[in-house]
């Protein structure tokens, strides 16, 4: 009896989380411009509309280019920063981590307007570049927080051993340290990319009019009225997210399995 | 003495793998009983069934004659000391010890007195206000014991409590536990895979393997008269040799007749013969019961351990006198040091997979 109740509770929560998404997916095949209308037959035209309209394609390209650049730059800068932070004294390091935490705990809208004001103050007009800069800023903490603990775990021993065996500092870093912290680096990059692609608030305030990412385009489209094409977009995004997460789970499981294999005697 | 605990035909399987098979066990009041066996033998499962953390698939558990099989752990009059101490990290030492007493609604004064008493008992008088995270492994273990015994359980269950400690500390704690047991006058049920620990502390040892009790008895009993090959190999080192019982009091090993003291095995019956390495006496060639050559030699502190090839069998021998490798020797075994065991009748009974 208790077990049944538990099962129902867990089921209801997940139903609550997934029902709206599944509704969107189903409605995206509905042959009606208004998504909340009753079923009018199966169609794929809303998917065609997404792919045929240049505004959606542009937004898509903007989103992914900014996402990859922001995550990439944040990863390089962040990993270098972690190495640098290791050389700092304990006190300095705590300071750095406090500063790193600010964008994480700050309200997004405050981060957004603060960047907007800073750009305005220095006379920088908004462009794709300002969006990119803003994205790098909020991605950096994710890289740091994923890489620094790994780097601490790795510690100095492997690096020192490599140097002792005659490797130069760069060679030692790339051949010994980097492979060891790679899981953290990869997670940092992936999280950054996701945050960037998913971001709405900060882009909303740091973009010039006329330049859209998917999020800002969705926002302005829904203001005009929700068309069924938004449902089609949801379906696409859901499928992509599903795919990415499945791959990630697979990779993580493989890594875990490798680890236990190596760990076992 | 009455039985404080009884397990009757208790079986348990996990994921279709039988861990306990119709286990029967009677535990007398005020004994120090050890469940001993390799990992996976069912000893911890037995303890957890007694503690109430696992329900047996079949069978009953009796506590002072009452069926407690379906009683949850919080309603049982026994307490457990867990393998990794399981101290509550968000409470300090005193709060940990007081937890069970608070649950049962004891007065503040009573609780304070009990805390002081328990801390004194485990030699940790001034540690009441400490954070548990600041304590060493050995200290945490003492607090875990204190936390259990303040509730005055009739039975204390200890699940490999010394497993995480280093050797020296482990030995100290063994004496502590014996002292505690004597001071408290309650029943201890102790789980370990360490045969030395079991031999040192227990009144009664239950040797388990693959869900069966292999032998139950006093430490001397278990060590000197192992009932089967598993017990003989698991407890201490031993030579287990195929032999033939020629008749009562005479066994043929490696084609040599050895007088022994066992009777009732019948005539010309194949048996397993157990001889402890310290019971093999080496001498000049020709003087003993059979001749051989020393093949290995290791110094082990209190004695030398040697292997002697004789009669086609490699004999393990421990002696304080060294014989160099290659030396020809003779060996002799006194009749009372030869232990005869029946060959296992079935695969099931054999159960001699030792993986420690």
């Amino acid at each position, binding site marked *: 009896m208790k077990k049944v109740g538990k099962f129902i*509770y867990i089921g209801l*929560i997940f139903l609550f989380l997934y029902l*709206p998404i599944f*509704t*969107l997916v189903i409605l995206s095949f509905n042959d009606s411009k208004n*998504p909340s*209308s009753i079923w009018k037959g199966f169609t794929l035209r809303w998917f065609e509309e997404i792919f045929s309209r240049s505004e959606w394609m542009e937004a898509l390209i903007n989103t992914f280019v900014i996402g990859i650049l922001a995550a990439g730059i944040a990863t390089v*800068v962040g990993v*270098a*920063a972690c*190495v*640098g932070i*290791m*050389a700092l004294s304990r006190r300095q390091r705590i300071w*750095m981590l406090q*500063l790193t935490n600010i964008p994480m705990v700050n309200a*997004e*809208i*405050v981060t957004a*307007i*603060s960047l907007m*004001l*800073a750009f305005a*103050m220095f006379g920088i007009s908004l462009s794709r570049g300002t969006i990119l800069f803003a994205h*790098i*800023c909020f991605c*950096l903490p994710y890289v*740091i927080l994923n890489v620094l603990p790994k780097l601490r775990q790795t*510690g100095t021993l492997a*690096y020192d051993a490599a140097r002792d065996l005659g490797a130069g500092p760069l060679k030692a*870093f790339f051949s010994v340290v980097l492979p060891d912290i790679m899981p953290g680096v990869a997670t940092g990059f992936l999280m950054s990319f996701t945050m960037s692609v998913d971001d*709405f*608030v900060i882009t*909303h*305030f740091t973009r010039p009019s006329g330049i859209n990412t998917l999020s800002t385009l*969705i*926002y302005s489209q*829904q203001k005009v009225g*929700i068309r069924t094409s938004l449902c089609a977009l*949801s379906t696409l995004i859901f499928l992509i*997210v*599903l795919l*990415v*997460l499945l791959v990630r789970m697979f990779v993580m499981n493989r890594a875990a399995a490798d680890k236990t294999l190596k760990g076992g005697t | 003495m009455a039985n404080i605990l009884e397990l009757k035909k208790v079986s348990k399987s996990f994921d279709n793998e039988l861990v306990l098979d119709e286990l029967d066990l009677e535990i007398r009041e005020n004994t120090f009983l050890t469940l001993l066996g390799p990992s996976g033998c069912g000893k911890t499962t037995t303890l957890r069934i007694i503690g*109430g953390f696992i329900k047996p698939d079949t069978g009953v558990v009796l506590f002072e004659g009452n069926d407690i099989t379906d009683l949850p752990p919080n309603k049982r009059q026994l307490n*457990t000391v867990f*393998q*990794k101490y*399981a101290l*509550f*990290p*968000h409470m300090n030492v005193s*709060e940990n010890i007081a*937890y*069970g007493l608070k*649950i*049962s609604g004891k007065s503040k004064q009573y609780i304070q007195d009990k805390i002081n008493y328990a801390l004194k008992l485990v030699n940790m008088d001034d540690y009441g206000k400490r954070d548990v995270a600041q304590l060493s492994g050995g200290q945490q273990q003492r607090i875990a014991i204190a*936390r*259990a015994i303040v*509730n005055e359980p009739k039975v204390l269950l200890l699940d490999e409590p010394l497993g995480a400690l280093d050797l020296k500390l482990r030995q100290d704690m063994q004496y502590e536990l014996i002292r505690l047991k004597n001071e408290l006058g309650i029943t201890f049920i102790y789980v370990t895979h360490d045969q030395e620990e079991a031999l040192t502390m227990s009144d009664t040892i239950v040797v388990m393997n693959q869900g069966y009790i292999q032998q139950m008895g006093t430490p001397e009993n278990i060590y000197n008269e192992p009932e089967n090959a598993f017990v003989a190999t698991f407890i201490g080192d031993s030579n287990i040799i195929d032999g033939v019982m020629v008749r009562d009091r005479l066994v043929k090993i490696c084609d040599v007749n050895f007088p022994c003291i066992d009777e009732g095995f019948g005539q010309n019956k194949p048996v397993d013969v157990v001889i402890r390495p310290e019971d093999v006496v080496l001498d000049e060639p020709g003087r003993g019961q059979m001749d051989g050559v020393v093949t290995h030699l290791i110094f082990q502190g209190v004695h030398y351990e040697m292997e002697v090839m004789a009669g086609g069998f490699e004999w393990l021998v421990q002696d304080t006198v060294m014989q160099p490798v290659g030396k020809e020797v003779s060996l002799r075994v006194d009749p009372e040091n030869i232990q005869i065991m029946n060959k296992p009748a079935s695969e099931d009974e054999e159960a001699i997979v030792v993986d420690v």
Partner: protein
Amino acid sequence: MFKKKSLAGPYMAFILCGTIIPLLAVLYFALVDKNGSLTFANLASIADPIHLKALGLSLLLAFICTVICLLLAFPLGLMLRKSGGNKGFVIFLLILPMWMNFLLRTIAWKILLQKNGFINMILTSLGLGELDILNTPTAVVLGLVYDFLPFMILPIYNVMIKIDNSLVEAAYDLGATPFKVVKDVILPMSMPGIISGITMTFVPAMTTFAISEILGGNRILLIGNIIELEFLHGGSRNVGSGLSMVMMVFILISMALLNKFDKNGEGTVV
């Protein structure tokens, strides 16, 4: 190992230009008027009844949302912890909706809640009448809970499954009832997860403008909506900055209260 502090240089530059200077800019704009002279009028503009109402509503809705999320997430964490299950798969199921664009997820509720939408279709066919909550605070709370529930569940679940089961067994062993085990052991040990769950829910819920805009129409104005209007729709940046500073103060007060509650919570365990 690494002696190169300078490697942190580019990052320091990003912190300086991307975090510190911008925040100082907000402070500056909040304290000056259009002509650049010092004024407290921007901060004081919170007293404007519209602003005050928006701030109050934001605090209220965020509070309700956080409480509902906590009440839903804590028992769920307990159940998931007990049922064991595949940890990776559970986390996968929780992350999946989180990774969906939150605007689309919010829009989904707008579609569902519409007068002739899916939910009303079911309700009327069951003869239960119509639900007309779109453009009300109820709809906004629903959207907030929906969007932020995973942010509450995930940290709580993560902390809970790490609690060593032998601690739970130890509490049972010492006589605790299942309720006491939760109250004395699991709850205090889950506190870090609960705190970060509350933070991750309350702050975004209180400062959102998109969710209230989508599900509240133009009728529900939260403090985030006011700030957005001031910055992007012809208002005053100075007033917007002033209101942001006030909002920040309220967030900090809330977090301070939370920390105080946390310490009290720990104290009551004894």
